[in-house]
């Protein structure tokens, strides 16, 4: 288990992190979301040891993280960086060696990953000759090639085409299924919702919500009741505390709280009920509410 505990960091007068903490289980995919400047990158840099926290700690399996642990991590920084003039295969292989792999293992892992990420045709090209999306694939390969024990990826999906997004999603699912904790940040909340087991929402350097996605969506007071009624007279829902929108002869009523049965009876009296049920908020809705 990877634990981030009460991280604090300031840059001059600016407080970037003000007590950030969360935990990621082995085999869990953790989505890290938050507005621009909320502190995601800063947190991940501290996890990777390229930035020092003012206080707080990152722990793995119950003990403080060491340099040796980090050497087995895989990291994709927000600001991508590769040797522009080095070719794809050499580059991936070099990084796997830096992460401690033997020469033969490095070569095999590099070949496999190049294949998997669809870079076979570009394996001998210099990085500078690749399109941005392909450079990103190489960046990803560099983060993955040494079969890391923990994956920390800062906005890995930005700049990828839909096919590449799917390919990356598959790779990440694979890795997490093999027992690796995966943390990634993203602004694509639908993607996070689809991929992640749990999420953490950070706002202005503080965690405002975190936990399994299902729990967050189900939790008390978050779900709304949605009723669709056909042929009702205008003003039928005036007595209820909800909002009505009209759409092609249908009234859609959304109510945040109230007595379900009472609302159903009112709706049945007013017209033909086509839909009635509680709707869980999307991650985007939870996010907006949490960050507001």
């Amino acid at each position: 288990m990877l634990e981030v505990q009460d991280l604090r960091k300031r840059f001059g007068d600016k407080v970037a992190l003000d007590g950030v903490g969360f935990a990621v289980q082995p085999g869990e995919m953790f989505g890290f979301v938050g507005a621009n400047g909320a502190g995601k990158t800063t947190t991940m840099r501290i996890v990777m040891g390229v930035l020092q926290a003012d206080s707080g700690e990152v722990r793995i399996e119950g003990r403080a993280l060491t340099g040796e642990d980090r050497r087995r991590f895989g990291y994709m920084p927000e600001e991508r960086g590769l040797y522009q003039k080095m070719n794809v295969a050499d580059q991936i292989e070099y990084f796997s060696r830096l992460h401690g792999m033997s020469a033969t293992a490095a070569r095999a892992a590099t070949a496999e990953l190049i294949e998997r990420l669809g870079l076979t045709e570009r394996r001998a090209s210099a990085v500078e000759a690749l399109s941005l999306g392909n450079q990103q694939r190489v960046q990803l390969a560099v983060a993955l090639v040494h079969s890391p024990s923990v994956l920390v990826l800062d906005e890995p999906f930005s700049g990828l085409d839909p096919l590449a997004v799917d390919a990356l999603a598959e790779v990440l699912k694979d890795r997490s299924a093999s027992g690796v904790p995966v943390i990634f940040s993203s602004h694509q909340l639908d993607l996070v919702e689809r991929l992640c087991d749990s999420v953490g929402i950070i706002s202005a350097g503080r965690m405002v919500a975190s936990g399994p996605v299902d729990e967050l969506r189900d939790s008390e007071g978050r779900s709304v009741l949605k009723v669709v009624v056909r042929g009702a007279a205008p003003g039928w829902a005036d007595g209820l505390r909800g909002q009505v929108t009209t759409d092609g002869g249908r009234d859609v009523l959304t109510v945040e709280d109230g007595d379900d049965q009472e609302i159903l009876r009112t709706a049945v009296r007013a017209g033909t009920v086509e839909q009635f049920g509680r709707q869980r908020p999307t991650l985007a809705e939870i996010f907006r509410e949490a960050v507001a």
Partner: protein
Amino acid sequence: MNTLLLVAGREIRTRIRTRSFIISLAVSALLVVGLAFVPKFLSGPDTYKVAVVGPTPAAVENIAFTPYPDEAAARAALAGGDADAALIDDRKIVSEGELDQRLGLLLENAHREAKIKSSGLVITPLQVETGADAQYEGVRTGIATLLVMVLFFLLIYSAMYVAMGVVEEKSSRIVEILLAAVRPWQLFGGKIVGLGTLGLINLGVVIGAGLAAASATGLVADLPPGMTGIVIGTVLWFVLGYAFFSALAAAFGSLVSRQEELNSVLTPMTTLMTLTYLVAYFAAVEPMGTLARVLSIVPPFSSMVMPVRSAATEVPVAEIALSAGLMVVAVVAVLLAGARVYNRAVLRTGARVKLAEALR
């Protein structure tokens, strides 16, 4: 350590294939070879051709006599360039333009000797004895001057590559993933070791080319004894000087995030190197001077002044030992301070990091 060597290996593999490295190898080797041939061009021909009318004198070293029937024929040979001078009836010398001084002396001498011998007098020529220093002085000064240029060129060129590499990694942000995998000192050290190895290869090529050219031109006979010592000393001093200046280069380079800022941030280092070059040049010309003696002890000047001074003249072993000891201390200090600056500054992209801030 393994990681450091991995980093060094990448530096070597990528740089050794670049055109700029090959060009620098070729240019420095050509420079040395060219300079080795210069004395030959300046020293005139090995044998002179002299047209003779009348009796042919006894054989003289370095002169080939060719008989001609009369003065007109001899003059024609002169004009046609077939002879350097003409000796007419053992009484006058004719030449096109000015008579070569050495040839004149040789002929004059031969003439006198023949006359003296025929009068029955026997003169034992004076024995010449010179000290070892004086005997090779010219060659030693030449070698020393050449060394100054080669060392300066290689030092500044290798150090610049270190600085450029550091900035490249910083500006491309690759340093962030590198430092997630390796310690800063491994990166710092690997770069210095890798590019230093290339510098040594280059130095080896230069020395090899120089010696090969010297033996091709016959200059080898004029080389002072202890040439091996001079070569080994030069290599060792190059290593020390390189370690010193490249650590400075890496540290200063880590302060900036763009190649365009590199020149200005490196000014203290390049100034120090140029100063070292100038005093070393001075030491080559005047190896016995006080300036040369003092600065061949003081680091980092000693890194260039000492090898140059030892090439130019004999230097007491104690002085060399003291100088080397001080330089090693200076190198260690600069490496430690440099690694510290690098460690603090290399991840701070954006505005130029202040040196004082990085050292604190």
